[in-house]
């Protein structure tokens, strides 16, 4: 039961959705819409699971007074502040209207923190470029040259430096060519490879050959 029922669910749903691609008529059309709706509900619960799991892990850290437990307490407090404000102090379904407490927390706390977390990467990409990016081999040199042309071609400086050359040798045109031709070719090769792998993995999951998502027991 613990493993058989999930395998049957996976196979049934997978086969129905493959069929509905070729046969949009009933009952596959209705089943497609029903499964789509269910997926949205279950997906929402799955994300709730992630959020609640964070609180569970943080709560455990606080309870057992592990290293840095005050920060785990801060995580829990921040979570409940956001939840309480969102549910009780922000006007119900209109919780995201401009001027609500929830939207203020979004604009002045969530937004700056998210933005800065990602902006930190600018420093690390610069540091990594300086410390690790070496033209050690022919392949690495090709990679470096492509990066050069794209980086300089995507800013006006590139064209300024190559303005004395014929139009087709301007840095921006070289960057365009790199993106549209060899980059497209390489990305396409990767894409086709991934597509074939995805198709085979999907088939293995539907047929129950691949069962790693069920975990142990």
């Amino acid at each position: 039961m613990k493993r058989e029922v999930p395998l049957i669910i996976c196979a049934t749903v997978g086969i129905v959705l493959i069929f509905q691609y070729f046969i949009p008529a009933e009952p596959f059309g209705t089943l497609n819409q029903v499964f789509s709706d269910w997926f949205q509900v279950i997906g929402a619960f799955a994300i709730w699971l992630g959020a609640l799991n964070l609180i569970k892990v943080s709560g455990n850290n606080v309870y057992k007074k592990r290293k840095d437990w005050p920060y785990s307490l801060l995580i829990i407090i921040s979570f409940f502040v956001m939840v309480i404000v969102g549910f009780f102090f922000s006007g119900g379904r209109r919780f995201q209207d401009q001027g609500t407490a929830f939207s203020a927390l979004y604009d002045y706390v969530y937004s700056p923190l998210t933005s800065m977390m990602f902006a930190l990467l600018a420093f690390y990409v610069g540091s990594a470029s300086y410390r690790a990016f070496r033209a050690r081999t022919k392949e690495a040199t090709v990679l470096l040259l492509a990066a050069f042309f794209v980086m300089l071609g995507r800013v006006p400086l590139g064209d300024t430096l190559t303005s004395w050359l014929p139009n087709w040798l301007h840095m921006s045109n070289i960057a365009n060519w790199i993106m549209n031709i060899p980059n497209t070719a390489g990305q396409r090769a990767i894409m086709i490879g991934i597509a074939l792998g995805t198709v085979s993995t999907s088939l293995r999951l539907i047929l129950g050959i691949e069962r790693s998502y069920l975990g142990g027991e």
Partner: protein
Amino acid sequence: MSTLGVWVGAILTLGILSFLYKDNPFYKVAEAIFLGISAGYWFVSLFYQSLLPKLFDNLGLTKLFGASNTDGALQTLFVQGKFSGQLWYLVAGALGVMMLIRLFPKGGWISRWPLAFIVGTTSGLYFTRYLASNAYAQISATLKDFVVAGHPGFLGWTNLNNLVVLVGVVSGLTYFYFSKEHKGTVGATAKVGVYFLMVTFGASFGYTVMSRMSLLIGRLDFLYRIWLGLIK
């Protein structure tokens, strides 16, 4: 933007920025707030934007508690005495709750049912879509306008570029074909593929630099223009 809000945003921004010097309590506080607030944001958003309209409204629970005027499955069944298609949402709700049981060590196995549903749905969709869009459509696009030698315009830029794309795709795929040893013709083709992939990765790196720098520009713009008012 309110002054207090801007100051809070700026202080939190500087807290994250302080990590560049070294890990410190100021950064850890900002990080902890970020984690908690993010989780809380998703929790509230999903309730109001997904679960409330999709599940609770359709089941009639919101009308039952006086939060809505729209009839749901419960009202249709018990008041009007009819079965409605909305009753199917009970299954979705049950599967969703099963997902949450994963939080408990005992009985967590029941979460495999909704997980299997998600895996099955995704597999069924991806099977056809990836084959059609990422395999077939890409192969079709690669073989477009390929002119055989001798036809007028063979050396035109468009045809040469299409030839380069064709060579790149075939050689790139050959590199990823590990069922045959990369020797002789296969090896040489794979080697050409490696160079195409290096150009691809170099272009990706260049764009990644652009992306990361853009994000920092945005943040510094907030600090200089909105917080400190140094830029008009």
